[in-house]
């Protein structure tokens, strides 16, 4: 019998614990359980037969850790997996032969895949594609060996789960059961909720999903409730017999077989279709479950399509429905000079900053578009997606017209992405829909086709209908589509907005599908654009708009959003609106009054001995970022101060004051950092002003600007907080710093030193084990770039150690590195080395 067919109409009984039973029969702690397939096949057969005898339909072959990470020798890996499948098959046959009752029960052998045991980036070191490759090698052998299905089990991480499922889908057509290990907080170790996992796994086509291991059945009630509320595929429940603990030198579990069975039966009544046990459970536990189910004549609860339109990140889903979804539009180079430059210069910090600032404005999703001419868009888009997901848990909308870039980014994306976009063109649908089917996704569909943008609402809706039909032919339901009927500017055609609004109404009321708009277009070419854009937003929301791609920094837009929610009973007690209104004045007020004098700002210190400090210096010393930026702007614009004079007379003295206070141990490290950040804000304004002046033919440079520094944490070391602090301070003092990051190869350091003709190379190491790599880097720099001085620092280093490994200088802290760099810079400007 086919497993998928069996799953459709029946409860599926899985097996129970394996590791704990093998330990009782001689497996030593730390020994690989899979080796028993070769050394003691009779023991494994015996245990698995007893599960089939107890009522299991599916028994996992003993392959949990059988992957290339644990078995680097592929020959041995094959041997282990082939033996495992044969043993399990034998166990099924022996059980069939042992009783009439067993023979009637359909039996399946599952290829079991656990975690690779290495955490994926960004938390760990393992690359996503390497994980996919490793799982593919294993599952290919498992399929060849004749498994009936694949079980992906005990995953702690959303992205590794995705890698495993993708490997199965790319390697074979076997059915897949996917279960993750949720902890007491109801989340995976890396943060995913059951609803987030459901969105991703259903999108990718898992046959059954749920949880195994980690806790006893009682503690997992909340997790099961969440799965049952959002999953449309069969839900799996495979808990431990409680938690293991050591008692009188023996491992014991605290849930008995009877207690276990009662709890499992309760879940089956609630809708769970696939059940079994994990650590600590034995054939006895499985027998109790099957007996109790039989005694009560349980029938599976029919599956229902939950009809949820969802995207997800690696922590949570976002659902589309009545409550409007805000999609931040700022990660996009269109019409943004600074952003384009950041893309060309590969300034990832700037791009991430745009994302994080929008996240602070409480958008639900970030649109990500990095398309400019002459860049490797697949590579850059993928990198941006990965980097953004390392710092924010918001779901992303991947925005590109290049199908290759779309596929690369969708592979790397951790969760179920929003896809921007498909349209009515045959060519585009045939490129994009297969990607949606493979990786999962919630797709924006533009109502355009080969003829361009249809003029009337009626024609646009026709395109939408065609897209729905085509999507269905790929197995993509309308719940995974959201239509963008296109917002054109009213400055060119004053009926444009009416057409768009009518489309939104029809999509919502008549087709029953979601609609989204790139709202800002409506005001293109008009003054004070946000005034009319927000009007359009409100009007579209009234007609049933589910989402908008918009600018969350525009107060008018946020005001339309919060008002709509309050007016439509989507904001209980108007709490969110009140929060928005309360912060409105402070947030959107313009800069501090021109010519703010000491004592005039509320943040200004009242200490008598600081009375002479200027407002800017005061803001820097206190570490007030916004204040520093506002005062600098007002000094330039209102007072007409020379930007370079502000640097030399205000910023540097303030930094020096903080630096000296830090050296005297009166100021603490976080305060030093806050001051540096505040100074950085002032520099952003000053730099922009200098660029303007430069463009106009004037302007100058600050005194350290000719001094170039390349810094890195050395090969093998991943600690970078110290290095980041040094970078920040050096930049404050006007040095031109190139940061190569952490775990940097000596050759990479040297290449950059030569390319930049750097005056100083700064190296950081935290661990004794990486000091040899530092020594090697120093040697190479001295050999290939003899002009460059090497300065070192880090927790394990001392002056003595630094001398020993041939460094030119040792800095005990970040201020020390500034002092040394100033010395080098001064020598340089005097013409010496």
């Amino acid at each position, binding site marked *: 019998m086919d497993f998928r067919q069996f799953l459709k109409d029946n409860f599926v009984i899985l097996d129970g614990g394996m590791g704990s039973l093998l330990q009782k029969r001689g497996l030593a*702690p730390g020994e690989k359980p899979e080796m028993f397939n070769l050394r003691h096949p009779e023991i494994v057969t015996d245990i698995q037969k007893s599960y089939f005898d107890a009522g299991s339909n599916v028994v996992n072959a003993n392959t949990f850790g059988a992957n290339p990470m644990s078995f680097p020798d592929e020959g041995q890996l094959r041997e282990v997996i082939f033996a495992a499948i044969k043993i399990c098959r034998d166990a099924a046959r022996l059980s069939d032969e042992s009783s009439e009752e067993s023979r009637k029960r359909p039996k399946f052998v599952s290829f079991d895949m656990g975690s690779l045991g290495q955490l994926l980036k960004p938390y760990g070191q393992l690359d996503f594609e390497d994980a996919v490759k490793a799982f593919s090698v294993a599952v290919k052998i498992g399929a060849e060996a004749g498994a009936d299905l694949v079980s992906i089990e005990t995953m702690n991480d959303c992205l590794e789960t995705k890698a495993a499922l993708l490997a199965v889908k790319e390697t074979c057509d076997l059915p897949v059961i996917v279960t993750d290990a949720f902890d007491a907080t109801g989340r995976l170790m890396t943060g995913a909720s059951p609803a987030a996992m459901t969105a991703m796994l259903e999108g990718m086509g898992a046959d059954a999903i749920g949880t195994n291991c980690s806790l006893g059945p009682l503690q997992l009630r909340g997790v099961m409730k969440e799965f049952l509320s959002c999953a449309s595929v069969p839900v799996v429940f495979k808990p431990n017999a409680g938690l293991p603990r050591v008692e009188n030198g023996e491992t014991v579990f605290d849930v008995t077989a009877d207690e276990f069975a009662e709890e499992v039966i309760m879940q089956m009544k609630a809708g769970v279709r696939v059940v079994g046990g994990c650590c600590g459970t034995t054939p006895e536990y499985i027998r109790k479950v099957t007996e109790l189910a039989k005694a009560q004549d349980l029938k599976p609860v029919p599956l229902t399509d939950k009809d949820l339109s969802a995207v997800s990140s690696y922590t949570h889903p976002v659902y589309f429905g009545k409550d409007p979804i805000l999609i931040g539009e700022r990660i996009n180079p269109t019409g943004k000079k600074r952003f384009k430059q950041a893309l060309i210069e590969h300034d990832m910090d700037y791009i991430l900053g745009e994302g994080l600032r929008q996240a602070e404005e409480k958008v639900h999703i970030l649109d990500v578009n990095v398309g400019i001419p002459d860049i490797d868009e697949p590579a850059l888009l993928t990198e941006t997606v990965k980097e953004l997901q390392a710092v924010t848990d918001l779901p992303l909308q991947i925005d590109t017209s290049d199908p290759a870039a779309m596929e690369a980014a969708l592979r790397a994306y951790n969760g179920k992405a929003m896809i921007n976009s498909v349209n009515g063109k045959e060519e585009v649908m045939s490129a994009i829909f297969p990607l949606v089917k493979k990786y999962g996704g919630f797709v924006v569909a533009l109502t355009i086709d080969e003829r361009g943008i249809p003029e009337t609402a009626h024609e646009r809706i026709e395109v939408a209908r065609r897209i729905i039909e085509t999507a269905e032919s790929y197995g993509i339901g309308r719940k995974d589509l959201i239509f963008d009927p296109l917002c054109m500017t009213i400055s060119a055609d004053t009926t444009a907005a009416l057409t768009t609004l009518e489309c939104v109404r029809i999509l919502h009321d008549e087709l029953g599908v979601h609609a989204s708009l790139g709202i800002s277009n409506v005001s293109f070419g008009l003054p004070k654009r946000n005034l009319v854009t927000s009007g359009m937003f409100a009007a579209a929301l009234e007609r049933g708009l589910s989402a908008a791609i918009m600018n969350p920094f525009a107060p008018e837009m946020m005001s339309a959003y919060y008002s709509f929610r309050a007016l439509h009973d989507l904001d209980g007690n108007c709490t969110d609106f009140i929060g928005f209104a309360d912060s409105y004045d402070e947030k959107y007020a313009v800069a501090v009054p021109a010519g703010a004098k000491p004592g005039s700002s509320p943040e200004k210190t009242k200490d008598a001995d600081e009375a002479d400090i200027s407002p800017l210096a005061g803001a820097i010393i206190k570490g007030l970022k916004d204040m520093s930026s506002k005062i600098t702007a007002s000094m330039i614009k209102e007072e007409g101060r020379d930007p370079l004079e502000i640097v030399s007379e205000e910023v540097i003295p303030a930094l020096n004051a903080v630096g000296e206070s830090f050296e005297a141990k009166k100021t603490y490290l976080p305060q030093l950092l806050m001051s540096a950040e505040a100074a950085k804000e002032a520099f952003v304004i000053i730099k922009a002003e200098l660029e303007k002046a430069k463009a106009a033919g004037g302007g100058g440079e600050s005194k350290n600007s000719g001094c170039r520094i390349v810094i890195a944490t050395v090969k093998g070391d991943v600690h970078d907080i110290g290095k980041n602090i040094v970078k920040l301070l050096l930049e404050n003092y006007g040095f031109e710093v190139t940061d190569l990051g952490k775990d940097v190869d000596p050759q990479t350091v040297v290449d950059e030193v030569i390319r930049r003709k750097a005056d100083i190379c700064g190296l950081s190491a935290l661990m004794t084990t990486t000091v040899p790599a530092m020594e090697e880097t120093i040697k190479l720099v001295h050999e290939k770039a003899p002009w460059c001085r090497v300065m070192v620092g880090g927790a394990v280093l001392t002056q003595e150690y630094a001398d020993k490994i041939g460094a030119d200088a040792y800095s005990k802290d970040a201020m020390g590195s500034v002092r040394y760099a100033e010395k080098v810079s001064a020598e340089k400007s005097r013409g010496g080395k």
Partner: protein
Amino acid sequence: MTGQGIRSFEEPAIERREILRYAQCSGCTDEAMLGLMEECISECRSYASFSYRVSYAVLPLISCDTVSGQIDMRHMSITSRDLARNLDGCEGVVVFAATVGPGIDRLIKKYTKLDPAKALFMQAIGAERVESLCNSFCSTYPEKLRPRFSPGFGDLPLSLQPDVLKITNASKNLAITLDAGFLMSPSKSVTAFSGICR
């Protein structure tokens, strides 16, 4: 005497003095700094999704030679004079791996980009949390435990980490993994040996 187990803990009490120490702010009384620390603590509580878990094994101490440093724990043999001195006279050893999970790593990474002072406090809070977790775990032992001793201390090499994770089953139970330099992810994790005395 052999067995493996997992334990989950409620949030251990927060040791603010320790956080200040890890943030290089020992003795700091500046209100703004203390306020920033509190802000970071409450943000960690909301977003780091700390889970306090320990995966452990109890092993017999078959022999322990403080001169040669040979330690035999039946399922694990180690040569380390420093650890041998630490375990001398004990009858068993608790080997454990503790972690507060990777959520804090994401916060650290985020604030490294946004606000380095907060990144520093996040680091400090993570360090304090995992140390407090180790304290909670060790204090639950009915027997007296010796001070914990971790790979990387003295002559006990970091390269022992793979064996420690295997014997404690921490890769499966806690998803702790190692990089090429034997550093753990999540970064706020601790492995240690602790002798059991009567």
